[in-house]
């Protein structure tokens, strides 16, 4: 479903109405950001059910805190920050940090160069390819196979289209680290999805190859 963006002025009006007691306006305020909030949660938790639970909690917390929203940041960035905080709390609570260190999320510059694994010619994107649920499934699996710190930055930059600066602020890392992780995330996704030497894309076959990283 296409997301209809609200203009900043209309958004400010909705926020004022919510603060004035018109609670129903909050639903209208959040609706355009549902996918972004969900993807932010999923990027950390890598689990649909957990991500949904966190989104529910984040929306409730955002509603309760709406009086504190001053408009220095965009509403979308603000509610995504709430969601990221909730997702990290859930990781800690579920003790999943024993297996995937939350400190990994705050590591500095990643060491070593990423060497692409695949050099097949992938010049054309079949434009109707995204109609295929198999390709969408492949994208989802490719994203899930990434290390959390690369998945998060790919979600915020390339799916949410946040700026480098906003991404850095939300993740609590430097802009340089955002760029480094984004590079690795993109190259890893590319290797996961690349058609391989059999050239499935060029031969017009339906996408069928998934090579989890």
């Amino acid at each position: 479903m296409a997301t209809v963006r609200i203009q900043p002025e209309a958004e400010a009006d909705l926020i004022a109405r919510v603060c004035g007691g018109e609670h129903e306006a909050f639903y209208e305020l959040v609706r355009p950001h549902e996918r972004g909030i969900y993807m932010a949660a999923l990027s950390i938790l890598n689990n649909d059910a957990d991500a949904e639970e966190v989104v529910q909690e984040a929306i409730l917390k955002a509603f309760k805190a709406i009086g504190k929203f001053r408009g220095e940041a965009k509403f979308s960035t603000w509610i995504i920050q709430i969601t990221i905080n909730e997702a990290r709390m859930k990781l800690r609570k579920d003790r999943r940090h024993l297996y995937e260190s939350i400190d990994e999320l705050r590591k500095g510059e990643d060491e070593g160069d990423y060497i692409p694994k695949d050099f097949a010619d992938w010049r054309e994107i079949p434009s109707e390819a995204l109609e295929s649920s198999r390709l969408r499934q492949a994208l989802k699996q490719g994203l899930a196979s990434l290390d959390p710190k690369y998945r998060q930055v790919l979600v915020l930059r390339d799916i949410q289209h946040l700026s480098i600066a906003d991404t850095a602020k939300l993740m609590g890392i430097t802009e340089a680290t955002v760029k480094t992780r984004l590079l690795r995330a993109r190259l890893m996704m590319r290797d996961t999805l690349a058609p391989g030497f059999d050239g499935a894309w060029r031969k017009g076959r339906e996408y069928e190859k998934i090579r989890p990283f």
Partner: protein
Amino acid sequence: MILSPGEYCELAKKPIVEIDCLEVWRQISNYVDNEVDPELRAAMASHFKDCAHCSAVLDGTRNVVKLVGDGKSFDLPAGASRRFYGKLDAHLAICRPKKLKS
């Protein structure tokens, strides 16, 4: 990155610095985002003309950005949009003043 006429003339006078594939791969994400300086951009563009491998990596990287950035790529689970407001609905139901019976 758009160059002013003066910047373009200065750049055109300079010999294009050759860079190796490793350096190209390090910068390829910034190149896709137009976040490299004009000299590096020219060096990379020249490299892509002659290196099929790096050209393939560039095309693939651009395709990844295009695919993941498309709004159709990642669907919400069925019915999720409705469920997202479950806790808020419950909270508002408790907070709403109950109507008095007449």
